[in-house]
């Protein structure tokens, strides 16, 4: 019975602390003075006694909250870029504090988001893309800040697939990141006080989710220039330089008669016999005959690749990939020389 009563008192106390008092500033001296009045039977005049004052100094409490604007999963399209979730961070401690901001991939989901960036709100409502990218934030007690976590959704994600992330706000005070709730960081508080870690070691974590509600289309193609190298001058785009192109083909569901067609730009000359095909996502990695299969330029053989000098404005690369029974990825590579 005693225990139950005490527990309920503790709970009541927690509620009180969460009820929104501004935290007492670090370094505040809290004094208490009791007085007593009394009289003696032999003297009707009351006397007064004043106690000695007792005092202690409030130390720094490192505490922070973070809330997301999206309580439900953000609905996204597969392959979409710059998907934004807004977070509000509040320094609920009683000292000035710098907090490190990171995003980590959650578990129990179907895919991971990519190209994760964090931007500080510039005061203009919404995310414009012109905000400053940040990795940490400095806040005074009770100060709030808004940040945007911006991610890309992979094209391979399917309908109803979910990605979970955690937005982590961690105190930058030495020792906080590896500390636990209640740890005292001697001398690390403002003004030479000690710093005490509140919940989550003086940090906060907010989980968010993305759910794919529409696919990117069945096939997503991304063409990039892997390198531009001159035989003697190095990585410059001058006549004689060899440009290596890559085309990443992401098939998100079954399709038939898949054919990838790429017309060469003007002022380039296709390098004969440079077609390579890999049955996986090797975008960014140079394809060779060891990690990919060389395809001939001829259309009259069984391989998928071919080059037709007479098609398009300046020649055409075509890969006939045919029927695709399921999702998959291809990487295509070829080279051309600047005229």
């Amino acid at each position: 019975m005693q225990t139950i009563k005490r527990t309920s008192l503790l709970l009541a106390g927690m509620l009180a602390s969460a009820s929104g008092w501004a935290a007492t500033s670090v370094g505040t001296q809290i004094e208490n003075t009791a007085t007593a009045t009394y009289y003696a039977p032999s003297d009707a005049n009351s006397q007064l006694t004043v106690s000695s004052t007792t005092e202690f100094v409030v130390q720094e409490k490192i505490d922070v909250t973070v809330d997301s604007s999206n309580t439900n999963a953000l609905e996204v399209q597969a392959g979409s870029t710059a998907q934004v979730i807004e977070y509000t961070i509040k320094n609920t401690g009683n000292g000035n504090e710098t907090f490190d901001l990171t995003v980590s991939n959650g578990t129990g989901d179907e895919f991971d988001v990519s190209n994760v960036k964090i931007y500080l709100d510039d005061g203009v409502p919404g995310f414009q893309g012109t905000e400053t990218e940040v990795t940490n934030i400095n806040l005074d007690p009770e100060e709030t800040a808004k940040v945007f976590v911006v991610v890309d959704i992979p094209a391979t994600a399917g309908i109803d697939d979910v990605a979970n992330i955690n937005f982590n706000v961690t105190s930058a005070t030495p020792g906080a990141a590896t500390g636990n709730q209640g740890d005292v960081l001697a001398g690390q508080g403002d003004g030479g006080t000690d710093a005490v870690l509140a919940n989550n070691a003086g940090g906060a974590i907010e989980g968010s989710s993305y759910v794919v509600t529409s696919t990117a289309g069945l096939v997503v193609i991304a063409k990039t220039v892997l390198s531009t190298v001159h035989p003697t001058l190095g990585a410059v785009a001058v006549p004689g330089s060899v440009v290596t192109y890559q085309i990443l083909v992401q098939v998100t569901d079954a399709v038939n008669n898949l054919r990838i067609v790429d017309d060469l730009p003007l002022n380039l000359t296709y390098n004969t016999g440079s077609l390579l095909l890999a049955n996986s996502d090797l975008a960014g990695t140079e394809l060779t005959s060891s990690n990919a299969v060389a395809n001939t330029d001829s259309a009259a053989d069984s391989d998928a690749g071919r080059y037709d000098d007479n098609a398009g404005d300046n020649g055409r690369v075509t890969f006939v990939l045919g029927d695709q029974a399921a999702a998959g990825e291809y990487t295509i590579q070829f080279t051309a020389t600047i005229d």
Partner: protein
Amino acid sequence: MRILLLTFAFFPALAMAEVSLLTEAFKIVPVQQADGSVVEEWQTPEKVVPGDKVGYRISYNNTGKEAAEGVVINNPVPAETIYIANSATGANSTITYSVDGGQNFGKASELTVTAQGGNRAAKAEDYSHIRWQLTQPVEAGASGKVEFKVRIK
């Protein structure tokens, strides 16, 4: 002769009640016991931060030669703290509270504060002062204590 006179002059004072007070602060830390229950321990007030509970103990001691009667102990709720409801204790005492800076005192159930044009029952966080009226005289040489708890804002 002179010494005798002086002694005589101070005699009434020595005969009277002489109550001293000692105020101590403690940081209240919930400590889980082996059986899983949580017991609050009163520790030295180091590393106190916002949200912490602090306990105050006011000890009184009658060092005089006569009983002290009508003893009333007053304690303002310290600045930057909030009184924790029902936390004031004291043997043989009537505990009352003030919500007007110590001018008027009443039992917790009787106190009201004005808010938004009307009156409402006072909450513990409205209390500005705590008062213990001892119902028994403090005999010569006797001592006792009263306690209360606050939370650091």
